[in-house]
């Protein structure tokens, strides 16, 4: 019952996410031949034009092309924003809408109310992360290219494991701040801060140790093949899950202690 309630609350956000992610994947997969043509044309017009290393690989390696533009870039950022959007809501925000007392009058513990809300959002974020696993290989096949489903799945798993931290940050902000709009802008701003900070390192630049330690976008992106265990690493995954668990527990504790 509660799961259905939370699904009804978030379904529009989820469908917006489906649209955005599908549109992004469609653009970069279907437009790949055209983008390559444009690069070739630019090079023809100006042979002295500097080609960054990633471009040289992206020209010949479709998997790398997809990774560079989607998993390491726009898809990841879009998904992170959608994830914090899905984290918003719950009984804290119901008090703003006036329905919190009705929810709390039901014979359900606050723990169950909180966890149901967290699970629904997490499942929706996971489905959004898994969507490219189907969309990218299918669209690639449509234009005569090949994209490995396992590679896509590995990237989606990295999204889910690493991105849980963004989701947990969203849940925490949501628990701390009453206004949904303020929570949303704060959470999205935090996501942008992360991506702004790590942008200079996205082209394979050497990362200092401290940056590596907190490079969540880098962890989520993994490598283009996403087939290594050491990099991004199991330790990184476990750390992400531990941090997420801690943030979620803190949010639960705040919800438990709050007066409505």
């Amino acid at each position: 019952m509660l799961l259905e309630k939370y699904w009804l609350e978030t379904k529009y956000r989820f469908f917006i996410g489906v649209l955005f992610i599908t549109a992004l994947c469609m653009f970069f997969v279907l437009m790949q031949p055209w983008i390559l043509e444009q690069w070739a044309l630019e090079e023809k017009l100006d042979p002295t034009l500097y080609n960054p290393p990633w471009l040289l690989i992206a020209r010949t390696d479709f998997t790398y092309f997809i990774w560079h533009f989607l998993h390491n870039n726009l898809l990841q950022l879009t998904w992170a924003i959608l994830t914090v959007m899905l984290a918003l809501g719950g009984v804290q925000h119901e008090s703003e809408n006036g329905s919190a007392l009705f929810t709390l009058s039901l014979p359900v513990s606050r723990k169950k109310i909180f966890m149901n809300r967290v699970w629904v959002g997490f499942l929706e974020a996971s489905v959004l992360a898994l969507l490219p696993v189907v969309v990218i290989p299918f669209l690639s096949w449509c234009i005569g290219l090949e994209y490995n489903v396992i590679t896509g799945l590995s990237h989606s798993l990295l999204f889910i494991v690493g991105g849980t931290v963004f989701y947990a940050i969203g849940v925490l902000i949501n628990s701390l701040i009453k206004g949904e709009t303020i929570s949303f802008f704060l959470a999205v701003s935090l996501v942008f801060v992360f991506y702004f900070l790590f942008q200079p390192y996205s082209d394979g630049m050497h990362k200092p140790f401290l940056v590596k330690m907190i490079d969540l976008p880098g962890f989520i992106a993994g490598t283009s093949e996403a087939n290594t265990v050491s990099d991004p690493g199991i330790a990184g995954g476990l750390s992400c899950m531990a941090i997420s668990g801690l943030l979620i527990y803190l949010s639960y504790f705040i919800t438990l202690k709050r007066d409505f």
Partner: protein
Amino acid sequence: MNEFVITTKGLTKRYGDFCAVDKLDLNIPRGTICGFLGQNGAGKSTTIKMLLGMVKPSSGTGEILGLDIGDENQSVEIRKRVAYVAEDKRLYDYMTVGQIIKFTRPFFAEWNYSMEERLLDEFRLPTSRKIKSLSKGMRTQLALIVGLCRNAEIIILDEPSEGLDPVNNEKLLKVLVGLAADGKTIFFSSHHVFEVEQIAEHIIMLHNGKLLDNRPLDQLKANYKLIKLLFDDVPNLNPLELKGVKSYVQVDRSVTLFTDNNEEQIIDRLKINNPSSIEVINLNLRDIFLESLKAIENYAA
């Protein structure tokens, strides 16, 4: 012997320096309709929320049906057996009337389907309409349906008639009387003192978080009186010295006393001053409430 279904001992809620509810001791007998009176900010809603686990008490204890209000697990059990309609009647805007009823039903094993049908019919609520498009009165009606149909042992209502027109208000009062006749305990707060007087058997009054009064309505009416005395000359009195006098107003030769109990002895004592006339006025609940507040304010001044 009366069995108390709601009891509190020293129940207190502080928000920083502000004390919303101050050492409240309540005993509400089973099967009664209990009216909860107080001005805005008196602490009525905070008390109700503490009883249902929505607000954590700063100190003190409370029990509903023998279950501890401070224990999270027992609080869930309390909410299985207590129906609550909040002061804020807003529900889930994205659901329809039918959807929210369907959503609420499974939480309560004893859901009263016949009452659901009856109230939907009486209030003429369209089940397919979205909650966000309902008027304030209709939202109140819907909140009452999803509250009252829970078939709970205790029904706690915070300003239940807010937004209702007189016809629907009358219907609500009848439903509440009917539920009490079936053995349910009804505890409701209201600003409409007349409707409280119409159906309540027991009254609790709160002022600035403190308990002002807690007794059966009959007893309240029998005890509280207004005594009007007229003297030939301006008298020199200090009626507050007399036991039972809560407040008094003297305008020239006329003295009006607000008394609680001890009415006969007060009159006997004042007869020494040879009043030319003595009139004892019975009070309705509204007057008792207002005079009690005045007495408190005078005392504080």
